[in-house]
């Protein structure tokens, strides 16, 4: 294992200690909130404001966020969260296991930006240079290469709700439509902060990492004969781990309106950023605006 991964895991462990060190207990679900949903009710909301998701690929356009629709529904076991559909087959007070299906995000970086990028799946990707196989320094524009397909991932999700408004989310997914024929996984740690003086304001801190198998990264970010590029630019990708941190504030204005600020930074694996397809070594997401719940 790389030394940087060890350092990252150490930092992750420190974060867990930091997050769990608190006196508050996790509130039970007794009313509607950003953490709880009424069973059997559809919820539709729209965010209006200014925001962006940066595109790390060479020639990739950033994704503007101006009007962002959001839908969620929770049954006793079934649920939908925008681009995620799931069925919770094991539920205890603190642990929930679900089978989920969701759209894989990777393809979204390759398409021409029109109006289509409102529902972006969760993020992660990576490539690694094969030892002794250094790609050409010239960057490769994503629009020059062979088209990549959308993948639909299916797998298992674990939600573990700990004390002190702290929870862990983990997923292990496989593409069910055989696009890249590999795996990806995610581990996220979330900490909700509330203050008595700011009764209508909630703060959420998150940190985690996303892992992708060699099959996934090679399908999306590898370069070979089919891509019609100079053989010197051929690139074979390997598995990758991308850590991220995010910060979210939401303030309830009234029953229908709330103000929202979200910032997320995902740090791409250095092996990934060596790829001729990549131009940036991170993905930044930011949004500030208001949300109207119908």
């Amino acid at each position, binding site marked *: 294992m790389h030394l940087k991964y060890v350092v990252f895991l150490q930092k992750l462990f420190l974060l867990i200690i930091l997050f769990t060190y608190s006196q508050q207990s996790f509130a039970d*679900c*007794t*009313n*509607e909130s*950003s*953490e*709880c*949903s*009424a*069973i*059997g009710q559809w919820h539709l909301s729209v*965010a209006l404001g200014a925001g962006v*998701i940066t595109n790390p690929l060479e020639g990739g356009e950033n994704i503007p966020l101006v009007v*962002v629709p*959001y839908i*969620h529904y*929770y049954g*006793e076991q079934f*649920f939908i*969260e*925008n*681009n*995620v559909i*799931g069925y*919770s087959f094991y539920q205890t007070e603190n642990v*929930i296991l*679900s089978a989920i299906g969701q759209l894989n995000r990777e393809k979204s970086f390759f398409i021409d930006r029109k109006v289509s990028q*409102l*529902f*972006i*799946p*969760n993020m992660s990707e990576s490539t690694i240079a094969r030892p002794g196989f250094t790609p050409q320094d010239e960057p490769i524009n994503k629009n020059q290469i062979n088209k990549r397909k959308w993948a639909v991932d299916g797998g298992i*999700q674990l*939600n573990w*709700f700990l004390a002190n408004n702290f929870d862990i*989310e983990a997923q292990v997914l496989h593409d069910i439509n055989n696009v890249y024929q590999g795996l990806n996984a995610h581990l*996220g740690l*979330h900490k909700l902060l509330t203050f008595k003086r700011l009764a209508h304001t909630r703060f*959420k801190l*998150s940190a985690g990492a996303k892992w992708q198998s060699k099959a996934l990264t090679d399908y999306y970010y590898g370069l070979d004969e089919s891509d019609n590029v100079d053989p010197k630019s051929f690139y074979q990708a390997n598995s990758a781990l991308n850590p991220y941190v*995010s910060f*979210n504030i939401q303030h309830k204005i009234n029953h229908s309106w709330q103000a*929202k600020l*979200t910032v*997320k930074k995902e740090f791409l694996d250095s092996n990934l950023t060596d790829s001729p397809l990549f131009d940036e070594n991170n993905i930044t*997401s930011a*949004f500030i605006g208001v949300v109207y719940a119908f």
Partner: protein
Amino acid sequence: MRFKFFIGHSLLASLLMISLTATGKDNLVVPKVDLSIKPLTCIVKQQGEQCQMIITAKWQAIHAIDACLYQGEKSLSCWQQQQNVVQKFNVSMHQDMQFSLKNSQGIVYAHKNININSISPKKYRRRLRAEWSLF
């Protein structure tokens, strides 16, 4: 000059009038009225459902008064120079509602709340993805 004098006196007179009116209103004595409404709870199957029921409103004043019964902002019935009234109403509501007895100036003599309860109370569960997970 004469015009300014006229304006000045008119303003003074208007202020005096407003002051007197306000004083007169403050001194109004709201007669004591006993209001009872039955039932005070409406049961529905699921929370959020429309509740429909017949209520009996009964009110009694010390002396005859003019009064109207309101469901929220909606007037249900008005009476003139009545002291004892018993009347049934068919009401429908989808949330807890205040019923109030007011005079023609909108002064509330008395009020009661009717609450909606559901047989199966609304249940909640934890959300399994961070809200707005597109970020």
